[in-house]
């Protein structure tokens, strides 16, 4: 029993799996971006090289930083994403006795964004606190449509709050599910900090934003958090909206769905300009949130009237 638990946490679907799949996902982001720009792009293990290098570099702690939070906060992101990865993958295999709860998952998925905010605030640099400010605004913007879309999916699937309830048939195969999926995809784009919602990290204006003072291993932890997020967040979409994955050929089909979602996100990233904070807020509250609300209303109506395709 204990051996199984250790295996879950450290090998599959825990640390080792999340890290190696995250490295490949991160490479995919850079490679596809490079191909879109007619470049060759980095070799397969480039994200791993980056992290190995960062762990070998000096760790600078700025004098004006709040030291304990500056040092502790980078661990928040990987911890939260590791747990959510375990919950997600476990919930997709019905044989296990584990009950995946979607509310817990939603809480855990806020942790990486919160870690970036706290890290920026505690590093004592004006540009990084500006970046934290923008990140916080972005979180306020995308949480509303994301929660509405997930609520629509819960009502649509009718399986309660258990993640396993979503995987019997894909939610996206109905009108409300499709609307909810589009809204959630845009929220995931913002949660990953990709263009058009990368104002917190705007490299040309505030030079990496909240991470500007971080160097060496602590920066490496933030990079690990980001590449884990590249695995977990699209996997979350696949599980809740696209029917998840199972054993055998189902696993391959699930992986294909995951790659398609990821490539979609990368293509949105590469073909759009950056939005200002106020534009992003308007986009999410006046654009994506009504769409998700519409999905919720349709799902409730479909559920009450017993119409499957609504």
């Amino acid at each position, binding site marked *: 029993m204990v051996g199984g638990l250790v295996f879950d946490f450290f090998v599959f679907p825990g640390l080792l799996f999340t890290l190696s799949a995250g490295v490949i996902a991160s490479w995919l982001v850079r490679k596809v971006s*490079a191909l879109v720009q007619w470049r060759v792009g980095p070799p397969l293990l*480039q994200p791993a090289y*980056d992290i*190995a*290098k960062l762990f070998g*570099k*000096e760790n*600078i702690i700025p004098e004006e930083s709040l030291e304990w939070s500056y040092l502790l906060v980078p661990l928040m992101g990987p911890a939260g994403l590791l747990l959510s990865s375990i919950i997600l993958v476990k919930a997709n295999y019905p044989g296990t006795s584990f009950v995946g709860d979607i509310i817990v998952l939603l809480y855990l998925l806020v942790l990486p964004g919160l870690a970036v905010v706290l890290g920026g605030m505690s590093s004592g640099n004006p540009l990084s606190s500006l970046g934290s400010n923008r990140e916080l605004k972005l979180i306020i913007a995308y949480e509303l449509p994301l929660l509405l879309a997930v609520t629509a999916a819960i009502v649509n699937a009718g399986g309660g709050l258990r993640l396993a309830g979503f995987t019997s048939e894909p939610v996206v195969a109905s009108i409300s599910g499709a609307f909810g999926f589009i809204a959630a995809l845009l929220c995931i784009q913002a949660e990953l900090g990709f263009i058009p919602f990368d104002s917190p990290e705007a*490299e040309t204006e505030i*030079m990496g934003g909240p991470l500007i003072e971080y160097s060496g291993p602590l920066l490496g932890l933030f990079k690990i958090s980001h590449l884990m997020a590249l695995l977990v967040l699209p996997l979350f979409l696949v599980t809740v909206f696209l029917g998840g994955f199972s054993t055998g050929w189902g696993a391959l089909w699930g992986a294909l769905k995951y790659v398609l979602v990821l490539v979609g996100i990368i293509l949105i990233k590469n073909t759009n300009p950056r939005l200002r904070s106020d534009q992003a807020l308007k986009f999410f509250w006046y654009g994506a949130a009504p769409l998700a609300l519409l999905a919720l209303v349709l799902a409730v109506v479909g559920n009450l009237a017993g119409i499957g395709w609504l």
Partner: protein
Amino acid sequence: MNWKSWGISKSPWLYHVNTGSCNNCDIEVVDCLTPKFDVERIGGKLVGSPRHADVLMVTGPMTRKSKPRFERILEASARPFIVAAVGTCACSKGIFHDAYNCVGPVRKVTEDFDEDIMVVNIPGCPPRPEAIIEGLDAGLKALKEVEI
């Protein structure tokens, strides 16, 4: 060869410092990122903060005003890192050789600040992007020999 310098040679992150150059070398540095030369093939990318930098790409003859700023950047960068002096001005002050307002070259200023920092000279006015990539490669290879 130890793993720290191996890591840097596998993913050199570039930080761009202008110490009074005419912008010609700066454009050639940015040229290295374009599709034709694509320095990301060897893991290089441009970063915005000296805290993240592995290679400082310094252009220009080091004017009197920019020297203290450059020294602050050297202080802020996370070690180990190397300095690449891009262009003839940065290597030897070039046509600004006897100018009263230039205190370069980059190698002298860097070595006055800290003798252990490695400096690579990439001459040319401006150096071709191939020359910049070759200089980077030479610097990263030389870094492997040094014990960090």
